[in-house]
């Protein structure tokens, strides 16, 4: 005769996930908004100048405002994203991946590739794609930081490079829905999607990086004296400047990203997936079932399941 044992309800951990998730989403939205508006600020500047409300002063402080706002958005985003590096495994994983990627940058600096070609973006894209956006963001940011430290490339461009490389890693998981929709997981289609993604970012990276010195190149006061110049005219100037100075340079980066992902992507993805199962897993207490016992029930011990 079995003794009926009452079901022991397992109380979920009392964590209010909604508020942090909402706050996190808001923070992502706002930091991206500030970053985008701040980067586009120099394009709006001529219109601001023409409004006459202290426009000249705004023209003078454009680089300062740009740097402060991008810095602020970056600082907040980094604060949020670094929560992903909570465990020893994640910290060690990032440390080693960043070291490997920094070596690639070191090699690239010592033996420069054609144009803006750099091998560092492959691991940032594939790491973000496999390990998630936060890890991808940190991988991008830390790669640029550490490689700048060891190659002596610390400069005013560094925050922009870090922010943009972080965005590359952060956005890499956006490929997943497309890959799923194509039914290409683990197939050649997945590599093609990632290669195209890498090529697009190769160009966008250059467009954003150039913005750090664009207020210097564009000149601010000069706009004040030119009647009728607006956002589009400034964008046109930037496009001319970009096409003349950077397009060829950035095209080699885009092509390089695509080629490297096509050549090495499948093999690297296999390795990263294998280690993803070993590095990233969650302990979740299994729901306790009523044990079939013949004696007074003992306090059930939550079982630990390892879920990849």
């Amino acid at each position, binding site marked *: 005769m079995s003794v009926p044992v009452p079901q022991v309800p397992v109380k979920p951990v009392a964590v209010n996930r909604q508020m942090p998730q909402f706050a996190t989403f808001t923070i992502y939205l706002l930091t991206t908004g500030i970053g985008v508006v701040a980067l586009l600020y120099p394009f709006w500047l001529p219109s601001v100048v023409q409004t006459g409300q202290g426009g000249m002063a705004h023209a003078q402080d454009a680089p300062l405002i740009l740097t402060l706002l991008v810095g602020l958005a970056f600082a*907040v985003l980094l604060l949020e994203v670094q929560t992903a590096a909570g465990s020893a495994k994640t910290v060690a994983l990032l440390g080693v991946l960043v070291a490997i990627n920094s070596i690639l940058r070191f090699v690239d600096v010592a033996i420069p590739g054609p144009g803006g070609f750099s091998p560092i973006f492959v691991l940032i894209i594939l790491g973000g794609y496999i390990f998630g956006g936060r890890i991808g963001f940190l991988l991008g940011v830390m790669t640029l930081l550490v490689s700048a430290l060891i190659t002596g490339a610390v400069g005013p461009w560094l925050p922009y490079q870090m922010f943009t490389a972080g965005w590359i890693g952060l956005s890499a998981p956006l490929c997943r829905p497309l890959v799923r929709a194509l039914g290409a997981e683990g197939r050649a289609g997945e590599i093609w999607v990632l290669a195209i993604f890498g090529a697009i970012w190769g160009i966008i990276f250059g467009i954003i990086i150039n913005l750090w010195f664009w207020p210097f*190149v564009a000149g601010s*006061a000069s706009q004040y004296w030119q009647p009728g110049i607006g956002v589009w005219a400034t964008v046109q100037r930037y496009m001319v400047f970009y096409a003349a*100075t950077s397009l060829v340079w950035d095209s080699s980066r885009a092509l390089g990203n695509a080629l490297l992902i096509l050549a090495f992507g499948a093999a690297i993805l296999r390795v990263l997936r294998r280690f993803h199962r070993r590095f990233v897993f969650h302990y979740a207490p299994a729901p306790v079932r009523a044990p079939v016992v013949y004696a007074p029930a003992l306090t059930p011990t939550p079982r630990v399941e390892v879920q990849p």
Partner: protein
Amino acid sequence: LSDDGAIHGLAWACWLGVILLIVTLSRNPWYLGLALVWVSVVDAFARRRPLLGRVAPLWSPLRFGLVVIPLTAFFNFLTVHVGTTVLVRLPASWPVIGGALTLEALVYGALNGLALTCIFAAFAVVNRVVSLRALIQLIPRTYYPVAVITAIAVTFVPATLYHWQQIREAQAVRGHRLRGLRSWLPLWLPLLTGGLERALQLAEAMTARGFAGGPAHYPAARLMLLAAGLLAVLGGLLVRLIGAGDLWSSLLMVGGGGAVLWVLRAAGRQHPHTRYRPMPWRGRDWVVVGGALITATVWLLPLPGRSTIFFTPYPTLTLPALALSTGIALWGLLAPAAVWLAMPPPVEEGAGAGGAWEGEQQHDRI
């Protein structure tokens, strides 16, 4: 221990900040030129000290200037059709570059290039004289995980290089030759796999030694304050863009920025830590900070002659004015050189001659 003449990283940050302030505010060629000359003097003194920083950048400031100044001048000359001294007139139907090409636009472009060169030269000095350890120590406490990852990565770089060399030799013994892109795969994959295996071992060692980072917990109220601060900054920026009012824009941006900085500071307090080898703050650091502050103060206060800072060649090019007090204030940038001048000349020990990397490894092991 011999004194290597190191100046604290925070003091260098102040020095750098003032140079950024100067090039942001001014397009007066006298001041920009003076700032560049003083930075070059500091650079010359830095080259006589032991190399504390990393390898020197590939581009020297001179080379950078020779490329960038003509580039910015030419671009501005072609695309900005402002000024009264017309040198050439292109057909107005030509997009972007069509119209009058003026001397003023050419000069203004060159001045922008000069400002960029000044920034580049200042960062080149900092790269040379600030050690890796000092730079990592500059990472704020708020970003404790980032600092830990940076320290691990920097420590692993030499090990990874050594591992790479081993893999190359092993593959060469097996007859591997580099032919085409895909032939790099047998080199990179073992490097990646080996690195990730070492990361697992490192994680176990860290856990065994009591590393317990754990996910950071930020109270909901603080997160909401952070979001509100960001919203205020974004609002202030948009108000500024539509020109709806400078006062409101400034209030929103300063208030929002203050709230964000407060939350960041509060987050940093969650990570109490001690430093194994803290870098002392010495008298020489006060000298550098003092020099930078004197320059910043004279440049920011409404003193006579301050208007000369805001030189513009438009609409007609004139000779820029030079105010004595504003020019002399730039001498504050020479403080690092003065510190080194007052110190005995460095002793050639051979250490660091092969780059700072070897020296850093003695300090930066974790």
